[in-house]
């Protein structure tokens, strides 16, 4: 069955929040249980970031024990590395999937570790943006989908340096076509990429098959500098850059199968996150209740 047929089986999750092991214990972390109580529409599902060597923390365990919706966000697999699909790792993945019953798997399609999967080797780098890299990564996505029985949605990673001959949206278009899968579009990561490469926020938009966009991420970023070099840091603050909103709003207009949006804000007080959740909700509701045509939008942004 092709993805265009399988996609109908994916549930609509709405707006969710993300976490990873121990995140709730950090100072000023988002109180997800309170958010769920006070604004359930902003915490309809939990995206659980999982490094198999760490497992699930108390919040993720509690959430899954309530039977609430989740997605499984991997943090420890290089999709293009056959050695990463060892039985020990797959056993743990299946175990956590059994506990969480996620709607799908997703995660940054990049380099989570160099050399062997080891605690001293963990990082996150974007892939080399080439057709060869997309082919090998696609094989891994297909394998993981077959091993878990879940859709595996690659996410465009952040980075400060990007190498290769493809625009990152061209790369992900190719990857999703080869793996016949959907995509998790991280709007903040894309804004960072466009800025780092000197492109306009919507550059490369026409490369993507937008019917494959199933999930999106929105997050705050900060202009930082090292010496006299300025760059955008993906720090999940509540400072959502205008370019990120531009990407999100225009992406929403093009999607036809969007199922979920995560506002990544795990280290912020609820009060500071609410306006952003509301903006996401408003934008999504506009889509669900009748889209303005894309021609009616300000195409001036689109190069």
């Amino acid at each position, binding site marked *: 069955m092709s993805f265009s047929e399988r996609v109908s089986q994916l549930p609509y999750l709405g707006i969710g929040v993300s976490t990873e092991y121990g995140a709730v214990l950090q100072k000023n972390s988002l109180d997800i249980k309170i958010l769920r109580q006070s604004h359930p529409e902003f915490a309809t599902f939990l995206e659980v970031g999982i490094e198999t060597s760490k497992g699930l923390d108390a919040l993720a365990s509690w959430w899954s024990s309530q039977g609430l919706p989740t997605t499984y966000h991997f943090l420890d697999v290089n999709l293009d590395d056959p050695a990463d699909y060892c039985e*020990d790792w797959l056993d743990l993945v299946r175990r956590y999937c059994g506990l969480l019953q996620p709607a799908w798997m997703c995660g940054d399609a990049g380099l989570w570790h160099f*050399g062997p999967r080891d605690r001293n080797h963990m990082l996150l780098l974007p892939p*080399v943006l080439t057709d060869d890299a997309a082919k090998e990564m696609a094989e891994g996505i297909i394998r993981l989908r077959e091993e878990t029985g879940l859709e595996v949605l690659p996410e465009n990673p952040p980075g400060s340096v990007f190498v290769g001959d493809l625009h990152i949206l061209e790369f992900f278009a190719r990857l999703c076509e080869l793996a016949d899968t959907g995509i998790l579009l991280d709007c903040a990561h894309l804004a960072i990429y466009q800025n780092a490469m000197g492109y306009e926020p919507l550059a490369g938009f026409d490369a993507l098959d937008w019917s494959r966009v199933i999930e999106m991420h929105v997050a705050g970023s900060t202009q930082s500098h090292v010496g006299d070099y300025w760059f955008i840091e993906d720090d999940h603050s509540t400072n959502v850059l205008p370019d990120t909103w531009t990407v999100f709003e225009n992406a929403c207009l093009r999607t036809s199968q969007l199922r979920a949006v995560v506002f990544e804000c795990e280290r912020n007080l609820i009060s500071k996150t609410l306006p952003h959740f509301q903006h996401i909700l408003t934008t999504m509701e506009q889509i669900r209740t009748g889209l303005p045509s894309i021609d009616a939008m300000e195409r001036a942004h689109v190069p």
Partner: protein
Amino acid sequence: MSHKTVQQIVVRMLYDPEFANSVYADSANTLKVEQITEEQRNWLTTSDRRAWGTDPLRRTRSLHALVEEYPVSATLAAKIVGGLPLLDNFFSSARFHDSVRKGDYLVTAFAAWLRDVAQNTDNLWSRSLTATATIEEAMATVRRAQMPPITHSDGAKFRLSPLAALVDVYCGALQLIGSIRTTMGTDEAVFNCLVSNQICLDGISPVYPDDTQHVLVMRTAPKSGNITLEELSPELAVLLHIAKSPTTTDILASTVIEMGAGPQDALEILEGFLEDQLLVPCG
């Protein structure tokens, strides 16, 4: 596969600014041994050079993780070279670059680099560093070891468990490790001492290079992170050295008997090793 080579070079450039400078200055020469195309080389220098340095704490974080696994050796190395910042040079070393290129464990490369530091310095603590790096490398190895499924069959061979390692080091190394761990405290305390360059080894004795100590490093259970260190008698060390390769019980029993045990005692000793999972069947 060459995109994976490019990815490895990216990692090396992110960790090592001198290497990145060299790639920017002359990529053809710097990367002449790499199996990548001219086009791929050019990709590496397309970005603003400064974009490679947006995470200035990358090396510090990685060094912190390595020091957690080599607290004693890092202490001695910092004492020898004059402080923690010089340990940071590991990430500019050939050991580091070779490790990334070959896809090896960094912990293994770090041990080799520490022994290089010891070998290239003439210091009271140099030989001690050689010894402790070897023991802590064995600890890092058994910490990562996977226990294969145990199969039993008649006439099976046995071998030293993957959860165990036997190393021969300078005499006194085990006591030195105990003394420094006691003095320095927790892993976090060790790192803080190294950062502040407050390394006090008063009252601690270095190793005695004229004699050898046989040390058994063992993880207590497959799911456990607990590792024990034990000094072995020379006889037992000989036996376990033999068992590093798959060996029949006959050969192992003969070895024990040659050391003076009776046949029944020899079997009981081997049964004890099997029960403790120091020896495991290997087909």
